[in-house]
């Protein structure tokens, strides 16, 4: 197989490189590895990407670990044939695909979300295009002036090897779990962000995502480094539905939030119903740093996702707000992990789940306090809302506490959508459908109010559609 690599031109200014990375003009080789996974396939991926030896070796070692690891003990039932999956497709998954191939329910969803035709094609991966040259240009310049690096991870390996080598796989090593090992072996795409010390970006970094089709990958790898005293809000994905023709999506997201820095990572994803969505997300927060995960999950066959914050030094804070909506045939096994490794660290988990039409949601959460981590405070609140008697919700809280001087709170509540609530609202003239949607929207209000405006609007519409049961 001949593989031709188109590498963006190197430029002295790292951020300037992004400008050259034009999806419309760079012609991508159309390449699809054969099905299955073995050393040869992984070598092919390295060949395709023209990777340095260290990354090539890292992939091969990760593959060994993947083969040797058992399936994770946490979470739902995974019925996957690892040899029946394509692990590498051409870098932009777009050119071989046509609009006709996009599943009907996804098209309908786009339509009902009111997303313009061009953007629909982009979001579905059919067309990679710049959403807006103007926004892109000014944003790029603004970031470049501040010394921010924002690119895809493949490019970062080539252009910022010293930064990547310092942080890559340090927070989530391949040995962490079977799916982290798999991602480490076959990863492709994802975002790489470096924010220099003291730089505070006061708008959410999201427009970039929309122009970067590689983020849509099956095994993306994201690395975010927020240097001392810096601050960002990164919005990954969007509320528009995501689909993949493959059955497995397994991303790894690593974030380092350094002394006094702040990072908020927001993602709302709506996957096609046949996808196993198995994602490892972890942040390390150092002295007086704050990490916030806002994580929304809709769709998929099984999602296993537990964003984690390791509080490494005194004064660190971790906050996780997670929400899952399990519809028919779906299992959302979502939750959070907070690990207190230092004294005077604080955390909060708010987890909400909605189950409908036989869907199953589980909250699975870990709070761990390491020896020596005194004066630690964490509060966990998880609320489940069950919309009918076919659906199910479980709570699996794990507490591992190695210190005395700690304050850990856990409140869990499960409620069936109240007959009394429905009666109350309908007795005031709302139809039953309007009333249920209102109750559900109220339930997710704490999440929605944290979202940027346009995401909040889309989120509400998505929930509305899930409630009507017309899209999966």
């Amino acid at each position, binding site marked *: 197989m001949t593989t031709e690599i188109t590498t963006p031109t190197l430029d002295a200014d790292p951020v300037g490189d992004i400008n050259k990375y034009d999806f419309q003009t760079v012609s991508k080789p159309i390449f699809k590895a054969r099905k299955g996974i073995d050393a040869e396939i992984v070598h092919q991926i390295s060949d395709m990407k023209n990777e340095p030896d260290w990354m090539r070796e890292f992939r091969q070692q990760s593959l060994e670990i993947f083969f040797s690891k058992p399936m994770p003990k946490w979470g739902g039932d995974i019925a996957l044939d690892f040899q029946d999956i394509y692990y590498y497709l051409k870098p932009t998954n777009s050119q071989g695909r046509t609009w006709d191939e996009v599943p009907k329910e996804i098209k309908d969803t786009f339509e009902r979300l009111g997303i313009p035709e061009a953007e629909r094609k982009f979001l579905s991966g059919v067309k990679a295009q710049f959403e807006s040259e103007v926004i892109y240009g000014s944003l790029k310049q603004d970031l470049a002036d501040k010394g921010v690096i924002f690119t895809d991870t493949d490019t970062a390996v080539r252009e910022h090897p010293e930064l990547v080598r310092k942080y890559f796989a340090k927070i989530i090593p391949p040995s962490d779990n079977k799916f982290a090992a798999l991602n480490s072996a076959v990863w492709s795409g994802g975002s790489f962000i470096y924010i220099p010390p003291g730089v505070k970006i006061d708008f959410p970094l999201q427009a970039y995502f929309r122009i970067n089709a590689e983020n849509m990958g099956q095994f993306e790898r994201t690395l975010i480094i927020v240097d001392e005293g810096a601050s960002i809000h990164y919005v990954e994905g969007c509320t528009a539905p995501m689909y993949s023709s493959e059955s497995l999506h397994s991303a790894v997201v690593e974030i380092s939030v350094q002394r006094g820095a702040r990072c908020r990572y927001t993602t709302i994803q709506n996957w096609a119903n046949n996808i196993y969505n198995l994602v490892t997300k972890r942040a390390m927060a150092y002295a007086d740093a704050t990490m916030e995960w806002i994580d929304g999950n809709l769709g998929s066959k099984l999602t296993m996702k537990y964003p984690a914050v390791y509080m490494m030094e005194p004064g660190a804070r971790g906050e996780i707000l997670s929400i899952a909506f399990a519809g028919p045939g779906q299992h959302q096994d979502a939750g959070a992990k907070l690990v207190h490794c230092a004294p005077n660290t604080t955390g909060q988990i708010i987890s909400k789940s909605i189950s409908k039409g036989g869907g199953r949601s589980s909250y699975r959460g870990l709070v761990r306090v390491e020896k020596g981590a005194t004066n630690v405070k964490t509060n966990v609140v998880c609320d489940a809302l069950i919309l009918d008697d076919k659906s199910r919700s479980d709570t699996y809280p794990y507490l591992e506490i190695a210190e005395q001087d700690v304050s850990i709170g856990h409140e869990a509540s499960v409620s069936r959508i*109240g*007959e*009394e*609530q429905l*009666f*109350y*609202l*309908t*007795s*005031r*003239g*709302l*139809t*039953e*459908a*309007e*009333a249920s949607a*209102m*109750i559900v*929207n*109220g*339930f*997710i*209000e*704490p999440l929605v109010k944290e979202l940027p405006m346009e995401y909040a609007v889309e989120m509400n519409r998505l929930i509305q559609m899930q409630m009507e049961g017309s899209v999966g």
Partner: protein
Amino acid sequence: MSDTLVITNLHCSVEGKQILRGVNLTVRRGETHALMGPNGSGKSTLGLVIMGHPKYVVTEGTITLNGEDLHEKSPDERARRGLFYAFQRPVAIPGVKLADFLRHAATNVRNPERKEGEELMPMRDFRKELKAKMEQLRMNPDFARRYVNDGFSGGEMKRAEILQMAMLQPKIAVLDETDSGLDADAVRLASQSIAEIGREKMGLLIITHHDKLLEHNPPEFTHVMLGGRIVETGGIELAAELHGQGYDRIRRTYPDAAEENRLMAAKEELAASGAH
């Protein structure tokens, strides 16, 4: 027969237990009725059945509004036809702002033909009206931004119920112990508010144990419920008698109904203790 609620020989049960055993009652727009009776006599049940609560099964008899049988009508259809029930203990709906909910409800009730997804009443008009009504009821405008009944005090809940009644302008309203859990001043305020927004414009069926709520709403008719039936109907003097002397005379006069009531109240207590 304009704006008249007619209840004829109504029997109903909940979870297999019979509660109402042949209720007859007519309430016209512009009339005020007091419904009294000891605990467990079926007063709240009657209110909930009128509104169409799914838990209560009508086994015999009819409820009609302006001649139309409501049997197959859902609670929202009843609301759109002009019925209102003010809850004794309203449930909280976290995350739903009172104003948003009310705009939705008012739109539907005023435009009964509205299809789902059609525009709500204009925000400006709604806000203006809500503000005026809240002023009339001496409510803090911030109240409308709070989540429906979430963390409301007893008094706040009852005033929110009255506010909703004011906004929805029903033809016939059932007020279920709007005075319960309120101190004397709060009851007086509620009584006054109901009179301001309801009297003459609506037909009121006021379920109460006390006379304070009737202070500004003197009933033309007082009904006494016992054992799932209305056993006696009189004027305002009957309400006064019951307030003064309680239900002893009623129990002696209707021993069979009193026995039914005793059994029903005992079952209710048992169910309540089992639930906790």
